[in-house]
């Protein structure tokens, strides 16, 4: 039964009280994951904080403060700015199209002077927020109505289209699957997913013609890494050699020959998991997988304690994104999926990724801290 008095007490909690109410277990898991990242970055630099580990730690602390700020802000604030945030991110994504900085052959960044903003990262958060907001008041029956469902589908597809054009295949995939997954959790009928999957398979053929040369190359090389062992296949091959040679227990901290001798490409970013696999072996790799798995489990545990649909969808959506993130990366370095250039969450070197992840988890925590707040089915009535 609902105890309004209790809620009103909760609403006037102090910051410290709120912090006390948050899930320290989840935070601990995140910090543990980041620590693994610092250690690996220290190792790939040949046992030095320079040039990666030190900066990554600094970014972590900046990100952590953002995490706390986002976490203690009332979740209803986030609800209320969901759409504006989504629109803002979308405008940025389009802006990248107009005035992006060329980097790695693709336009993904806006140069803000102090740092480079990757709008696609904001878009992911914006998308989850907006979808959670949209589905907040809807029952599965409501959502399953075609005329209703078309709106979130457009919310997903339109920005995804722009991200594909950037082209950032990894993020686009993440957004699309993450968005669809959120709708799935929200209760959209199975029929849509089954028919959508079938359509998707058919769409592969025209999609192929839309891909850029290097993207096709990646796919072809993925299907047959021996196709070009010194060219496009080199990354996958060297990555597999690094991982495979790690064996059961690895070569030891800072003893990875593949990584220390520069045979691994992008070892501090996309391929950092292979460094872990090489130096710590199967045990290290499984350890990290466990850490990730526990993090996800924890998010499920938190989500199911939240009493408003917005919060639940937000947490589950972010959890799905998080999972896709790590799955694509790890599957990629092991040669299971094509190389799409997606970092390993909390571990790969990179500022934008660290920030957006910590902000996302801040949202998760905000939803959890404010789990007992009653949010009307029609959010319009709120505030």
């Amino acid at each position, binding site marked *: 039964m*609902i105890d309004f008095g209790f809620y009103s007490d909760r609403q006037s909690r102090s910051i410290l009280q709120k912090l006390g109410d948050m899930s320290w277990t989840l935070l601990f898991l995140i910090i543990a994951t980041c620590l693994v990242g610092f250690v690996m970055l220290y190792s790939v630099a040949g046992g030095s904080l320079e040039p990666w580990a030190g900066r990554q730690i600094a970014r972590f602390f900046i990100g952590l403060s953002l995490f706390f700020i986002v976490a203690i802000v009332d979740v209803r604030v986030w609800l209320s700015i969901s759409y504006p945030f989504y629109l803002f991110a979308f405008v940025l994504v389009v802006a990248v199209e107009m005035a992006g900085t060329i980097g790695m052959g693709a336009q993904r960044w806006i140069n803000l002077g102090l740092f480079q903003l990757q709008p696609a990262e904001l878009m992911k958060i914006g998308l989850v927020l907006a979808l959670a907001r949209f589905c907040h008041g809807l*029952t*599965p029956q409501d959502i399953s109505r075609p005329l209703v469902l078309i709106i979130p589908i457009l919310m997903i597809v339109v920005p995804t289209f722009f991200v594909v054009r950037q082209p950032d295949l990894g993020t686009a995939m993440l957004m699309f699957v993450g968005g669809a*997954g959120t709708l*799935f*959790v*929200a*209760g959209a009928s199975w029929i849509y997913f089954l028919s959508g999957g079938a359509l998707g398979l058919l769409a592969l053929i025209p999609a192929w013609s839309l891909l850029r040369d290097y993207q096709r190359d990646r796919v072809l090389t993925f299907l047959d890494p021996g196709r070009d062992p010194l060219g496009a296949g080199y990354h996958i091959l*060297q990555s*597999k*050699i*690094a*991982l*495979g*040679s*790690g*064996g*059961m227990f690895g070569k030891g901290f800072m003893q990875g*020959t*593949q990584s220390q*001798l*520069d*045979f691994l490409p992008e070892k501090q970013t996309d391929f950092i998991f292979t460094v872990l*696999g090489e130096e710590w*072996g*199967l045990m290290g*790799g*499984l350890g990290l*997988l466990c850490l*990730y*798995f526990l993090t*996800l*489990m924890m998010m*499920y545990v938190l*989500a*199911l304690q939240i*009493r408003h*649909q917005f919060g*639940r*969808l937000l947490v*589950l959506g972010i959890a*799905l994104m998080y*999972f896709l993130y790590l*799955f694509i990366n*790890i*599957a990629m370095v*092991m040669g*299971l999926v094509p190389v799409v250039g997606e970092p390993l969450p909390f571990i790969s070197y990179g500022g934008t990724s660290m920030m957006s992840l910590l902000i996302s988890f801040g949202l998760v925590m905000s939803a959890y801290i404010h789990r007992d707040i009653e949010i009307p089915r029609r959010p319009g009535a709120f505030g």
Partner: protein
Amino acid sequence: MDSRDIERTKALTRRAVTLGGMKAALFVVLAGRMYYLQVIDGAQYQMLAEQNRINIRLLAPPRGLIRDRFGVELATNKQNLRVVLIPEQSDDVTATLDGLAKLVPLGETTRARLLREIRRTRGYIPVSVAENLSWGQFSSVNLNMPDLSGVQPEIGETRHYPFSEITAHTIGYVAPVPEGQTEGDPLLQLPGFRIGKSGLEKTYDLKLRGKAGNSRVEVDAFGRSIRELARQDGDLGAEVVLTLDMELQKYAFERLGGESASAIVIDVQNGDLLAMVSTPAFDPNTFNVGLTNAQWNTYLRNDHKPLTNKCIAGLYAPGSTYKLSVALAGLESGAIDTNFRVFCSGKKQMGNVTFHCWQKNGHGTVDLHDALKGSCDVYFYEAALRIGMDRMAEMSQRLGFGAPLNVGLSDEKAGILPTRAWKKAAHNAPVTQGDLLNAGIGQGFVLATPLQLATMAARVANGVKAISPRLVRSIGGQPVPYEDAPDLGIARSSIAEVQAGAYAVANEPGGTALRVKLDIPGIKLCAKTGTAQVKRLKDGDKRTQEELPWQLRNNALFICWAPHDAPRYAVAVVVEHGMKGSAVAGPIGGDILRQAMLRDPARLAAYETPKGAKTRETGRA
């Protein structure tokens, strides 16, 4: 919370669990893949990682030095700064060569040759691009390494012959391994590796080469060495010490001047070759670097044949020098004795052919001593008729003719010693009296190398042992033992008679080499001159030697030894188309022998007799 909310929560939980299940399944996929890569295929990837990381480099041991008997370096190794290209490690071979061409000399022809070579060989085999670079060039290549993929600067060694032409024929030279002969020794595959191609470099190639070591080097993805993991040193090339005395060799070379000639100094007691010179010569250092076609053709076209080692590969009719052998054959066979006398009128009629003596007016009545001294042809015509072909050949063989002396040089010729069997086999004809007369004065079919002449001189001078010439004193610090020379098997009296004749040649009135003097008090030389016809002139042809074209002039030969009473050194000199043995070859031989004597301080000071040598009284001195 109304019923719709509850229902909605239940639906969400169901869906969330479904999705969570999918995630868990995918986690299992990741873990399974990880297990597959790291445990099931782990060993294979470990091997690949090791292959990535470890580069086995062959360590070429420095080639063994070659020294003369006193330790003077005749063949050394010089630092060679070079650049090799590993085609496999290059992104774009053409671009790399373009880049290199800006830093090191790289001509169009070299470039074309390199590209051909790269196409032909397998990609991991390094190709030598430029050698003998200056420090400046070498360091600029090092600086530009990042832009020159596949390029590797190396500090190697190159063979150097400080005396160049003077030792060219004896020591030979080294050159790159020929295409398709790189099997066997892994060293042969090293870029820029050289093997001995002629002379002693070829004969003792395996000893000089040593055995390859190897070094396991950890390299990074760009091929840069990080550290050495293990090292196995090979065996150094063995040092080869020769019997040559470089000062004497140098003197002989200079003394021969630009003539097409050869000179040999041999130790009468043990066969050590103190000098072995063939002129003109070539510069072996240029062979090492790679001769241009033009250079090669110049050598080939030269009628003085600079590429031939005339000491061992030049075949000459021995002419009158051969009379020493004929005389011994006569004395030993009993066909002649010291009382045998011949009247020389200046010619001998044989059927309808006239055989001349070089002395047109004739020597008058001569015995063996006079015949040797004045080199009377008519005497030896008569002697040859009495001795016969096979007995002459048998003695010559004992003195060193007719077979290679195996001094360690691969192109040594055997020469020709005509016998009845030989004539039958080679010309399917019996030996004629004309053949006999010609053989008696070392003309006709008989052919010998200067080394064989020197050996004959040494054996006659020694008189007791059939010593064999040798060039190598020690290999890798191990002295090469003297072989036990077999007994010559010639009666003392016969030897003494012939030695006395040779003494007379240089010391008694009427001797053909009277003008040759050592100018060392107390030391006299024994000698025999020789002037061998290259082309028999038609009877009507009255041209003098000077009027003939160079190639048709007589060969001048000279053998000698000293001291007359305790022979120590023998010398043989052959000057091609030198016209007269006594006037041309004689003085050269005398000067070289004098130098050999002067180079022997022990001999000058104490005049002691080496162990085993026997002092003999000298005929009619």
